[in-house]
């Protein structure tokens, strides 16, 4: 099956997934409300509790919230696919002359749009509660692109999870057990340097840390006078997180597509 029809069919499926935002209240809550809630909660509960010399903790937090939210957004990919596999519509897809990869491609693609919407809403909410972009606009744009790319890669991991579990609920548990700690043992909410040794080393090499570090830098949200990070990934956060995004996609995209073909075949 040609790449062209894989992309074309993927877009048809992506469009179908996006139509659902309007119709399914769950999706709306997930995409629209939870980002607002995250920003407000962190900004007001933690934002005023911790002092950062020379800067505002609230500004420091924003990149972390962005990072965590888009990575969490990948849960949606997994749950959506797991749900699709239980639905009758999959039988229809299987009998159509469409690309076998389209269902998974379409799902990860529509999730980029969801994440874009979530990011926009979070940014607006952030701006309202006092967050500011202090670097150039171009850098900031780059920051958002990095967030989207990284979350796209995590979507492929969750796609594989979603296609390997018996029900959508299991995907949520998987997220909670794996993604939750990974996004916390990082520099999302506190500087990595302040963590105890074992956690610190993990946090320093955690790609989510470098993602957050990169966006923080690109948004100009690192307070002046903050000491240079000592770990290599945090010194080269853009490079390191781009590397991880590419690596994850290269490994998990083929695995997820293969898994889809396998799952769709039997039953």
């Amino acid at each position: 099956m040609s790449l062209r029809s894989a992309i074309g069919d993927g877009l048809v499926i992506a469009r179908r997934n996006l139509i659902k935002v309007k119709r399914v209240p769950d999706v709306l809550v997930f995409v629209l409300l939870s980002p607002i809630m995250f920003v407000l909660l962190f900004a007001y509960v933690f934002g005023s509790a911790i002092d950062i010399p020379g800067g505002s903790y609230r500004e420091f937090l924003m990149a972390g919230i962005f990072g965590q939210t888009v990575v969490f957004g990948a849960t949606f990919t997994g749950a959506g696919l797991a749900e699709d596999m239980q639905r009758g519509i999959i039988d229809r897809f299987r009998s159509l002359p469409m690309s076998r990869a389209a269902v998974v491609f379409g799902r990860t693609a529509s999730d980029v749009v969801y994440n874009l919407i979530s990011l926009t809403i979070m940014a607006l909410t952030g701006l309202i509660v006092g967050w500011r972009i202090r670097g150039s606009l171009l850098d900031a744009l780059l920051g958002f692109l990095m967030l989207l790319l990284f979350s796209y890669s995590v979507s492929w991991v969750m796609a594989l999870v979603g296609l390997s579990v018996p029900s959508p609920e299991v995907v949520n548990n998987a997220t909670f057990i794996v993604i939750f700690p990974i996004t916390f043992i990082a520099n999302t909410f506190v500087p990595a340097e302040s963590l105890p040794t074992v956690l610190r080393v993990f946090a320093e090499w955690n790609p989510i840390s470098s993602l957050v570090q990169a966006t923080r830098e690109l948004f100009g949200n690192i307070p002046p006078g903050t000491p240079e990070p000592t770990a290599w990934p945090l010194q080269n956060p853009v490079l390191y997180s781009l590397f991880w995004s590419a690596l994850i996609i290269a490994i998990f995209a083929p695995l997820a597509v293969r898994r889809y073909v396998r799952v769709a075949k039997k039953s």
Partner: protein
Amino acid sequence: MAEIIRADGLVKRYGEVVALDGLDLSVQEGTIVALLGPNGAGKTTAVSILTTLIEPNEGSASVAGIDVLKQPAEVRKIIGLSGQYAAVDKDLTGFENLDMIGRLYHLGRKKSRSRARELLERFDLSEAGDRPVKTYSGGMRRRLDLAGALVAESPVLFLDEPTTGLDLISRTELWRLIRNLIDQGNTLLLTTQYLEEADRLADDVLVIDYGKTIAQGSTDELKDMVGGERIEIKVTDSAHLPAASEMLGRIAVGDLTGDDRPRTVVAPVSDGVKQLADLLKNFEAAGIGVSEAVLRRPTLDDVFLALTGASTESREVEEPQLALESGRRGRGRGLPS
């Protein structure tokens, strides 16, 4: 006429269960063939293999000369399928469902949209077309699903129990639609449990049971195969049934059946008119009241009974309902001896 669907020795096992046990079939281009069989006969399994959804353990199959196992992607381009359970997206509207299917058949944006509207119209769904499918009734979903099979005007169509769950009006309307399709040269394989449906629609009927073809032919041929005429008697008082059966038994050329109706007995006979007249006189003399007396050609139900040793209706019933039928009933495996 050319052969367009062909299957040879299809075997499909699910653990212990043998869903298909060496099924052969052949469908000529431009005809309607009905796969007729009771629950669990293997109809859906056969359709699933022919439409590339599942692979058989043994055997081979082709559609328009294309091997279903070796080139499934090519087969999908020329088939339309409506499965037993409606495969539509309930969060999308009827229009969005059909439009999406059109695009996945690569009809293009414009064609997909116009085709979707056209089919909604044809299946009487125009008004509901822009409502999410979750607000549809079961019959509406069924019709939408059937419309989905027709989106690409595929030359070969597979409909798995297309009219199950439809009311009489929708069913009759659908039969008309299906007939029209065939006039345009399409080929159709449909499955059904309804003898009447096969009788109405199909040029050829394939009776399957326990995963095997047990008979194939036009409905007339099948009826001839069972032979002759039937006398069907309904007595006024069930207490008279054994006596009536006894008298019918003496003139019958085969086994008696109860035809699944109370106080009724059916006998295949060789010289219908005369025997019926004699019989009615004898009944009168014996004081047996008769509320219905019919001389008729065998129905497909008779055919099924004769072929499988069990009625289509009573598959799940282990216990014979009427004593006189016990010889014919029960779950005889395979062909009757």
